[in-house]
Structures are given as structure tokens and as C-alpha cells.
């Protein structure tokens, strides 16, 4: 078995049957992290105990214990998710020394399924960005071309997975932060339906949009990860009590008779020709497999980007109020504390602790929630949001899955868009509406640009119908000519 490229099932089966030890696998990937991280800056912290944790699994197996479906699978975890005893910084100076006393539900459930946590992955600060250029720990590089961004905000997860520094990674998606970097790095990235995955222990950005999910190398690995992390959690009242489906077992590449929607609003506009060619090829492939295509329309998507930024910035300004230099995190130098004014204490700590983009969004959100503007911005955005969701639900009456591009172009160059916030925000034109409507969405690799950069397609389903999109992705994956292509840094 080639450990670097092994699937989750292969690893778990080998570890459980003692053909390969979890220790051997953790040692192998630890060496890859040490070798490749200086080139990519994907990891912010490496878990020095990973090999030891793997050994503990081996001991339990030796005693006859059945570990779980992800036995010995090495994972990297985005900095957004709390990991007991391992730094969790959200990519920010304000949390640079924070070590949580508990695991987020996602991480606890992964560990329970047998995952070995190899370390923490770089990201845009507080997940605010689409290029991983806003991190306190510096930019992450795209393994396919190190002059390019890996996407964001889960850029470290994308780069680490593409270069196979781990077997699997977790990202979070508030407006596209799983799907867009997965698209830029040639991965399968899934944002489950809002409410599938507990947000307990995940650093909050915009609570009504945030959802964690897998960024991995195959549709089946994505389904297996989702089965491990999804499901009701009494620590998060927005989690659904619905049963977690057996997505991996029910995977089927048979799309005959499946109705796939092409959204009018997403099929026009200035799309890069390689992206267009990839989408066209995906449509053609699925047609040949017997899928039916229908045109659908969600006119409110025209307003998705402004609604998204208004909602996200407003919720962020409230969520980030907790960083006050008292309970944890960075505190500005104050001298004699008893002579310091409380407002100055907060202002200085927050002014120094947050980066530029985060401050920009806190300012924007505070403005939108301030007296006299709440109705015009936050409330109005919420109203348009409901209209957008209702139009989507209507569209899903005539199709099972919507297929679209993930982004207008493949990965762009580092530094290219960072100076103009508004241009950067438009990166999210095809991804934000999924979060606003709470729908499940995913990115699956299907093409390559002329410059050798991966291109994916986006699949979206109605609430709680992840299986539909996973099946379409599975069919595309099986027919893909880019599967198995390796990036430049590997």
C-alpha cells in the first residue's frame, strides 16, 4: 500500500487488521509535513504527540478493540477548531497563545472514529478572506504553483491535502471557504446543510452561516468524514436531530434519470474559458450517463454577495466582541493597570490584536447594526435572504442538484487582489448563496487550466439531501481525466 495516496478505508482496514501500524502511518505523514511545510506554510502548529497518539491506538487494537471507521487516519485541522492542548488561533494575533481546554465536537468525534490529529492548519484571520493572505502566520502557497494562492479561508487545509501532508483535513465554510480552496487545489470539499455539523468549539465568525466539513481527496473519503462529524449535539441548538445517513455506503455513480439544474444566473457573465470548458465537459459527461438537465432560476442570487457581506460582517462584529484581553488571548502593554481607562484597555488591545481585514469587517458590521441603520442593512439583508432561500427551494422542486462553476477563474497570483477589498469580495459570487440559504454544497475537481491549475465544479442540493450531490460528484469523479494528477509540490 502506498501510504501517501491511501484512501481512508485502506488505512483504517490496514490499521485495524494490524497490517500497518497507526504509528508507522503517523510517522510517515509527520516526515512529509516536516519536508513540505517550509515550501507551503500550510501548518501553523505540528502536533508533537501525534506519533504517541497513534501508538496508543495500536495498543488498543492489540487488546482487541475495534477502533472505528477512521482508525489511524491522519488529519490536519483548521485553526478555527478548538483542539484540547493544541494552539487554536483562528490565524490571528489576538489568539496567538490560546490553548483550549477542550475539543470542538468535530474534533472529538473525529478522534472517537480513530483519527490522529497531526497539527493545525493555516487560514485567513478569523476565516475572513478568500486567498489565505490575511493570516497572522503569513500566506499559504498553492502546491500546484507556489506563486498562486491556495484559496481561502481554508487555504492551509487545501494546500496540506493537495500535497498529501495528511490523509484528510477539516475546513470551515461561511461563504465558500471550503469549496473555493478545494476548487483551487484539486480537492473534494463539502459544506453540509446548515445544522448537520455542530459548531461547538469552532471559533465563531458568522453563526448563521458557519459550517465545518471535509476537504479531502475523494468523494468517498468526504462521505466517511461527514458520517463521523455530523449529527445532533446538545451543545449546539442549531444542530438537527435527524439521523446521519450512511452516505458512503449509499454512494452511487448511477445518475440515470437524475434531474440536474443549470441556474440561468450562474451560466452567464465573464467566466474564464478553462472554467467554462470544465463546466461544459461536466454537463456533457453527465448527459451521456443519462442525467436530465433543466434550466432553473434564482434571481435573488444577483444580491447574494451584498447580502452575504452585510449578514457576515454584522454577525462577526457581535461574535468578535468577546476578544477583550481579559479571559484569553492578546492584551496590549498597559503599564500600571490601576491607572488605565477601561475603554482604552479594550480599544488598544483590539486595535493591536486584530488584523486589517478583520477590523474592516468589524467596523462594517458595527455600522450596519448601529442605531438608525439596523433596518436599512441587517434587517433588509435578512429579508432578501429569505426571498433567496425560498427561490432556491422552489428551484429544487424541478431538480435534484444544481451544477455551476465554483469561481470565475482558477487560482490567482499571491498579491494580485489583496489591495482591493471589493474585488476580493467578488471572488465569492457563486458560493455565498449556498450559505445564505443553508444548503449543502460541494466542489469536485474535474478539469485543469492551460497553466496546469485545477478546476472544479460546484454541486448544490436542497436541505439535508447531501446524497444527491455526493452521487453526482461520485459519477464525475469516476469519469474524470484529472483524477490522480499530482501537484508540483508533492
Amino acid at each position, binding site marked *: 500500500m502506498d501510504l501517501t495516496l491511501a484512501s481512508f478505508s485502506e488505512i483504517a482496514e490496514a490499521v485495524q487488521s494490524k497490517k500497518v501500524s497507526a504509528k508507522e502511518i503517523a510517522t510517515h505523514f509527520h516526515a512529509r509535513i516536516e519536508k513540505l511545510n517550509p515550501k507551503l506554510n500550510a501548518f501553523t502548529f505540528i502536533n508533537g504527540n501525534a506519533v504517541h497518539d497513534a501508538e496508543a491506538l495500536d495498543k488498543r487494537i492489540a487488546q482487541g478493540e475495534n477502533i472505528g471507521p477512521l482508525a489511524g487516519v491522519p488529519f490536519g485541522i483548521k485553526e478555527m477548531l478548538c483542539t484540547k492542548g493544541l494552539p487554536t488561533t483562528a490565524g490571528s494575533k489576538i489568539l496567538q497563545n490560546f490553548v483550549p481546554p477542550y475539543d470542538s465536537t468535530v474534533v472529538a468525534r473525529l478522534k472517537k472514529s480513530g483519527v490522529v490529529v497531526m497539527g493545525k492548519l493555516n487560514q485567513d484571520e478569523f476565516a475572513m478572506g478568500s486567498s489565505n493572505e490575511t493570516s497572522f502566520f503569513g500566506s499559504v502557497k498553492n502546491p500546484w504553483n507556489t506563486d498562486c494562492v491556495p484559496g481561502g479561508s481554508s487555504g492551509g487545509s487545501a494546500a496540506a491535502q493537495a500535497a498529501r501532508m495528511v490523509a484528510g483535513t477539516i475546513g470551515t465554510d461561511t461563504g465558500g471557504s471550503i469549496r473555493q480552496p478545494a476548487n483551487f487545489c484539486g480537492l473534494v470539499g463539502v459544506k453540509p446543510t446548515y445544522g448537520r455539523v455542530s459548531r461547538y468549539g469552532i471559533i465563531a465568525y458568522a453563526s448563521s452561516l458557519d459550517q465545518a466539513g471535509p476537504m479531502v481527496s475523494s468523494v468517498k473519503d468526504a462521505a466517511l468524514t461527514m458520517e463521523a462529524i455530523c449529527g445532533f449535539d446538545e451543545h449546539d441548538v*442549531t444542530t438537527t436531530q435527524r439521523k446521519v445517513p450512511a452516505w458512503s455506503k449509499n454512494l452511487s455513480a448511477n445518475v440515470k434519470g437524475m434531474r440536474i439544474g443549470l441556474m440561468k444566473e450562474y451560466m452567464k457573465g465573464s467566466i474564464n474559458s478553462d472554467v467554462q470548458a470544465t463546466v461544459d465537459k461536466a454537463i456533457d459527461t453527465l448527459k451521456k450517463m443519462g442525467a436530465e438537465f433543466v434550466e432553473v432560476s434564482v434571481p435573488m442570487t444577483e444580491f447574494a454577495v451584498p447580502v452575504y457581506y452585510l449578514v457576515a460582517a454584522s454577525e462577526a462584529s457581535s461574535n468578535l466582541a468577546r476578544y477583550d484581553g481579559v479571559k484569553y488571548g492578546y492584551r496590549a502593554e498597559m503599564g500600571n493597570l490601576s491607572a488605565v481607562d477601561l*475603554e482604552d484597555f479594550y480599544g488598544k488591545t483590539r486595535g493591536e490584536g486584530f488584523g486589517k481585514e478583520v477590523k474592516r469587517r468589524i467596523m462594517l458590521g458595527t455600522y450596519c447594526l448601529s442605531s438608525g441603520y439596523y433596518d436599512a442593512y441587517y434587517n433588509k439583508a435578512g429579508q432578501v435572504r*429569505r426571498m433567496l432561500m425560498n427561490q432556491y427551494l422552489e428551484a429544487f422542486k424541478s431538480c435534484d442538484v444544481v451544477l455551476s462553476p465554483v469561481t470565475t477563474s482558477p487560482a490567482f497570483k499571491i498579491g494580485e487582489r489583496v489591495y482591493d477589498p471589493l474585488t476580493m469580495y467578488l471572488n465569492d459570487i457563486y458560493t455565498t448563496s449556498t450559505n445564505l440559504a443553508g444548503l449543502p454544497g460541494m466542489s469536485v475537481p474535474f478539469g485543469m487550466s492551460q497553466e496546469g491549475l485545477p478546476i472544479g465544479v460546484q454541486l448544490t442540493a436542497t436541505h439535508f439531501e447531501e446524497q444527491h450531490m455526493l452521487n453526482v460528484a461520485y459519477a464525475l469523479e469516476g469519469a474524470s481525466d484529472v483524477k490522480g494528477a499530482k501537484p508540483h509540490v508533492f
Partner: protein
Amino acid sequence: MIDKKTIEHIAKLARLHVTEQEAIEYSEQLSKALSYFDQINKVDTNGVEPLVTPTEIESFWREDEAKEEFTAEEMTANAPAKAGNLFKVPPVV
């Protein structure tokens, strides 16, 4: 138009020190972003209930019992300054 005075007011509400240079920058960038966002005013939303949580919140019962999930030591371990198990802060009254 978001002028410098508005920026200072918002920064105060957000408990965020901004430098002179940042205030100028934010005033330009926020004005630009908000005028772009203003396009949502084109949508007739009369009578539409704002959407906050996109999927239904299903209420559930749990026993009302005390649990000690963390110790005081664990909860204060990350504090930048403390005295015993208390957070050290500037005078608040």
C-alpha cells in the same frame, strides 16, 4: 458617505482603536462597500420576515442538572493576567 467623524464614532462603539491612517482608509473603503451594498434597496421586501437561521431549530429537553465540565484553573489558564483564579483588569467603576 462615511466621513472620518463617523468612523471615529463606529470605532468607539466597536471598542477599536484606529490610527489616523486607518480612519482615512476605512472611510474610503466602507463608503465604497456600502454604496455597492445599497443595491439591495432595489428589492421589494414588503412584508417579508427576515431570515436568520436557515434551517429549523428543533427544540429538545434535557435534565436540569449541574455538571462540572471545567475547573477554574482550566478556565483561567489562558488569561493574560490573573491573581489566583481571578482575572486582573483595570478599575471598572
